[in-house]
């Protein structure tokens, strides 16, 4: 009888151990799956962050390229400074303002950009001065429009005669 009881206890124990082991294996697997999922989620989040940053970086790089194109197209190159001086003097002569006196001042601005202030003292008819201003507003080098900004205009009719004397201040930007 004792042996039978022992067998019953042993079998009961074995059954309990079997069931417990089975349940444990399930719990263990689930925990592992959850851990893998959390790592995957972290990886995806990081990939998302990198993608966003990559896009931002690309956008800013495109802006930088646009700026470079703007600089190339619309600003006067430092090496063409002499050409700019000659062209301005040529424009004054072309518009009958051959006596115009030019003075130039520089100031460095952003990296690689020089602000060039040009002061022009001139005497001439209103029509000629207006034509000169028009040419300045549409200033080109090799058919490419270059930005020259008129900053200050002071014109005064001379006491004698119809001539006007004046001082123009303008700015050009030289890109290195």
């Amino acid at each position, binding site marked *: *009888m004792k042996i*039978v009881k022992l*067998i019953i206890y042993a*079998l*009961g124990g*074995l*059954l309990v*151990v*079997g069931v417990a*082991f*089975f349940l*444990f*294996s*399930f719990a*263990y*697997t689930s925990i*592992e799956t959850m851990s*893998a999922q959390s*790592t*995957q989620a*972290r*990886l995806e989040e*990081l990939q998302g*962050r*990198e993608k966003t*940053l*990559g896009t*931002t*970086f690309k*956008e*800013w790089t495109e*802006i*930088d390229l*646009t*700026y470079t194109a*703007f*600089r190339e*197209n*619309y600003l006067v190159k430092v090496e063409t400074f002499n050409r700019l001086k000659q062209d301005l003097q040529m424009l004054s002569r072309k518009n009958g303002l051959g006596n115009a006196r030019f003075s130039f001042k520089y100031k460095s*601005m*952003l*990296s690689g*950009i020089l602000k060039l202030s040009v002061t022009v003292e001139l005497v001439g008819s*209103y029509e000629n001065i*207006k034509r000169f*201003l*028009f040419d300045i*507003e549409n200033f080109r080098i090799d058919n490419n429009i270059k*930005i020259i*900004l*008129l*900053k*200050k*205009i*002071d*014109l*005064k*009719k001379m006491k004698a005669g119809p001539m006007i004397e*004046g001082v123009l201040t303008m700015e050009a*930007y030289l890109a290195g």
Partner: protein
Amino acid sequence: MRKIRYNIAENKRIDYLKFGLVSAFVLVISFVFIMLGIGNLWSSDKRAQDQEAALKKAEREIEKLTSETDHLKTDVTTKKSLWRQRVSFANSLIKEKKFSVIEQLDILEKHLPEGVFFTDFSMNIETSSNIQVGIAADSLHRLTEAYEAFSGFRKTVKNELEEEGLFKASLILNLNPGKAEEPKVAPKPGKRKKADDDEELRNVLK
């Protein structure tokens, strides 16, 4: 003669066949559970090995991505202020370039009545949208006509005088009469959206 059997034992007699069968069943069930558990752990172990390999790869990738992200962040942060400065500079030039002195002169000329002419003209485009013009008329009537003609420019009249038979005056005209005079302030970096910042610049290059 028939034998009468009595069981006078303390416990019921065990049916060994039945007991054996139930025991075997329990044994098999336990065995099945254990085998299922082992199978589960086995496959999980295999999966775990695969996952571990994938995890290691993922961790390496995470490390790489983290360093790349940090690098990009630093790069963007350092370059952003420079880029903003450049875009703001380009936009300010484009904005100023859109202003045409010739157009303003044309407008003023159109408003000038017959018998009236400009004697001087002073304009500081950088600091103000006001322009000071001196006018001279051959009669007082013409001068008042000129005042009337420039009334849309929120004019201020000063220094009215008659000199050498001409009626002269100095007028301060506002080129943007619709708008109140606003002080020119440099745009604060970071206040505008990046997309807005470069829109103007891109439009010019199109």
